């Protein structure tokens, strides 16, 4: 009979070879009043893999991300991070899980009273007490260099463009070296050139860090560029999940319409 230790070792080994999902969402349901947003969704993402979640506005894509990071509570279903169900965890216990996650908000959600450098340093100040001030400054510079914002350390969020804010938001999301990266509409509201730059940046980070990523987007071109797999949502359900080619070959009318109009 397998002991708890054997199971833990097995899980660790399967995580190491990338076969066990880092994030697994099972039968997730969420309603707001009488409006059903998620109707029993199941998805999973492995280490080093990027899953793009597509769908029309209001189909619960952002809610899905907010549930995974614990900003919303599901009505039922489970969200397993490395096999641990985090649905309904208390705020402080959830904190430990959140340190493994980086979240890029749709509008970047930078702290408007802090400079660009202070925004990126914020998680480090609170969670890396072992870091000296100079080490922290060095780390912030390195993170901002990675996202191409090293020349804007002392600027306020209001003084930089939307695309630049997203880059800073991404640097902040990467500050604690997360294993899971959640991106909510990373290219929304950006011009095609800035969108392309953000896509390249995400691809580069994925290659270097091998995180498990979930990207919520409307942008089919972006999803095709950065994701290994795509999931198309409609009315709270996953209509189809697979590679871009799988979506192209699908004869489901909703999928055909979505691809045609995107």
């Amino acid at each position, binding site marked *: 009979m397998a002991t708890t230790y054997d199971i833990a070792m097995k899980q660790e080994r399967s995580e190491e070879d990338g076969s066990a999902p880092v994030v697994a969402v099972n039968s997730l349901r969420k309603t707001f009043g009488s409006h059903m947003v998620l109707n029993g969704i199941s998805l999973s993402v492995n280490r080093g893999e990027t899953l793009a979640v597509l769908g029309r506005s209001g189909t619960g894509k952002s809610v899905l991300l*907010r549930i995974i*990071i*614990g*900003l919303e509570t599901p009505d039922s279903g489970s969200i397993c991070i490395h096999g641990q169900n985090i649905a309904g965890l208390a*705020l*402080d216990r*959830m*904190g*430990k899980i*959140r*340190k493994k*996650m980086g*979240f890029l*908000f*749709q*509008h970047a*959600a*930078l*702290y*408007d009273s802090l400079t660009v450098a202070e925004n990126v340093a*914020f*998680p480090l100040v*609170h*969670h890396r007490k072992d870091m000296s001030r100079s080490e922290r400054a060095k780390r912030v510079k390195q993170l901002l260099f990675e996202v191409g914002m090293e020349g804007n350390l002392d600027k306020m969020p209001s003084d930089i463009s939307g695309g630049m804010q997203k880059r800073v938001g991404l640097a*902040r999301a990467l500050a*604690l070296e997360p294993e899971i990266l959640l991106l909510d509409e990373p290219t929304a509201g950006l011009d095609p050139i800035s969108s392309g730059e953000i896509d390249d940046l995400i691809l580069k980070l994925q290659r270097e860090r091998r995180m498990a990523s979930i990207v919520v987007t409307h942008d089919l071109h972006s999803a095709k560029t950065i994701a290994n797999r795509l999931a198309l949502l409609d009315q709270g359900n996953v209509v189809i999940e697979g590679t871009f080619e799988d979506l192209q070959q699908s004869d489901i009318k909703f999928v055909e319409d979505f691809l045609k109009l995107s």
Partner: protein
Amino acid sequence: MSNSGFTTVAAISPPLPGQRTVLIDTAVNSTMGLIGGLFEWFGNLGIFFWQVLRAAVTPPYEWRELFRQLDEVGSKSFPVVVMAGSAIGVIISLEARYSLSRFGAKSLFPATLVYTVIQVMGPIITGLVVSGRVGAGIGAELASMKVTEQIDAIEASAINPYRLLAATRILACILMLPLLTLVSDACGLLMGWFAQTLVDPLSFHQFIQDGFKGATFNSFLPQTFKTSVYGLIIGLIACFQGMRTRGGAEGVGRAATNSVVLASLFVILADVVLVKFILVVFP
């Protein structure tokens, strides 16, 4: 002309029996909705307070943010409290001189001024002034952070927003209100004496000696330290209104207004209870 006359008559005619039932139903429903809403608000406030309390007593402690908030609530409220306290001192001085002269009790002027400023007006005026300045500030700041997802970003960074944002602000209000009250009292007494001395010269030494004759710590300390309760009310209501805001710029405006109105109202209501409590416990 005839149309408007007809409407007026129709509007004031007594309702038919069927209409009367509908009117009663509507009135009952809206009253029940109001009472239900009130209970819900107090319930949510209680849950919020419990979450803040739990976050405040468990480490890590946010000392840096607390000191920033002490400066924000204390130092930055200093000028407005000085002005309000001084004005109250002058007003009481003018009123007291006139009233006491009519009854031939001018010698009671120092004691009247001291007791009125320290026991009654100083604490409540400081509470109201701070609820206006700090309550609106906290309400608007947190509401703005809420609608721009900055509070969610704090939570997503594995930082407890109740600890970082609410506990620090509420604690700063609790600690700074008594100190600001002392400042307000001092300014009120000084300016009250000054206003009196312009008309009827009286040495400051004499004024203090007569004013505090027979006074004990119990006469003044409870009245000063009760403002910590005002601080709790102001901080708690402003943080609660701010952190549960919805609906963009309009929501931010509503949160700021509600913070000031509710904090001021509850400060006055709390004063009623606290005055009675102090009279019973510190006779």
